[in-house]
């Protein structure tokens, strides 16, 4: 997400709106945004309802055995269709922001 924040002007120029989603509460997300300087939209799914519906739930993956979201990225066009996605197999390995930007450029 740091990479996305760094390239935020490029994403915005391309007409791409980043939206981050996790099980963190609005308060926790607000604190994270403030601390890390994230200025894009953060949404909270504390009961992991959407995360579960999208089959992204990592059961017991969080501290204290809490259910969390696995890392995943989707590019969704105006019609609500998924145009690009990435599912890492290792939480240490994340996609590059410039690559997501390149994928976004392919969307008309």
């Amino acid at each position, binding site marked *: 997400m740091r990479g996305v924040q760094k390239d935020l002007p490029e994403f915005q120029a391309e007409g791409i709106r980043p939206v981050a989603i996790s099980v963190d509460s609005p308060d926790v997300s607000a604190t994270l945004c403030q601390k890390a300087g994230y200025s894009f939209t953060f949404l909270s799914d504390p009961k992991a309802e959407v995360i579960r519906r999208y089959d992204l739930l990592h059961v017991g993956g969080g501290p204290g055995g809490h259910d*969390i979201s696995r890392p995943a990225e989707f590019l969704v066009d105006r019609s609500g269709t998924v145009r690009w996605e990435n599912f890492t197999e290792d939480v240490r*390995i994340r996609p590059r922001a410039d690559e997501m930007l390149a994928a976004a450029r392919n969307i008309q």
Partner: protein
Amino acid sequence: MAGQQLSLAEAGRKRGNSALWWGLLFTVLGLLSNFLYFVVKAGQRTFPWINLIVPALGLVLLFIGLKRAFGQSQIYRGKIWGSIASALALLLFAGSIWGFFHARAVPRSAGAPQVGQHLPDFTLPDTGGQPVSLAQLLSGIGGPGQPKALLLIFYRGYW
């Protein structure tokens, strides 16, 4: 007894056993390396070997240090603290291996939305607690205008 006293007297002149220090350091770094992030091309199958190589190198160095301390004890120091450091390093190594595979224990998410599929709508609160729907985001509400696309980033949270 006399021999023991002699070796104690000689202790001041024995060589240091830096392999033990380095070994312990590498096992600590090995454990910490699991908190590193690797930013790579999407879909690229990357195996973070470094997270295994660093702690393994630590164990090799400790083995060399222990071999010196016990095999050439008239030259090298480190019998006692080297043994303690090695026991600690083994715990750190076990922790590294656990951390390594824990980081790879990500669910497959076979039922996740696929490219070309329509993403089901949702409504979730933003940082101000205001409900925001996918449809609203797609239509550009609360943004600079209607976006061409959304980049949805699902993340683990608990930062």
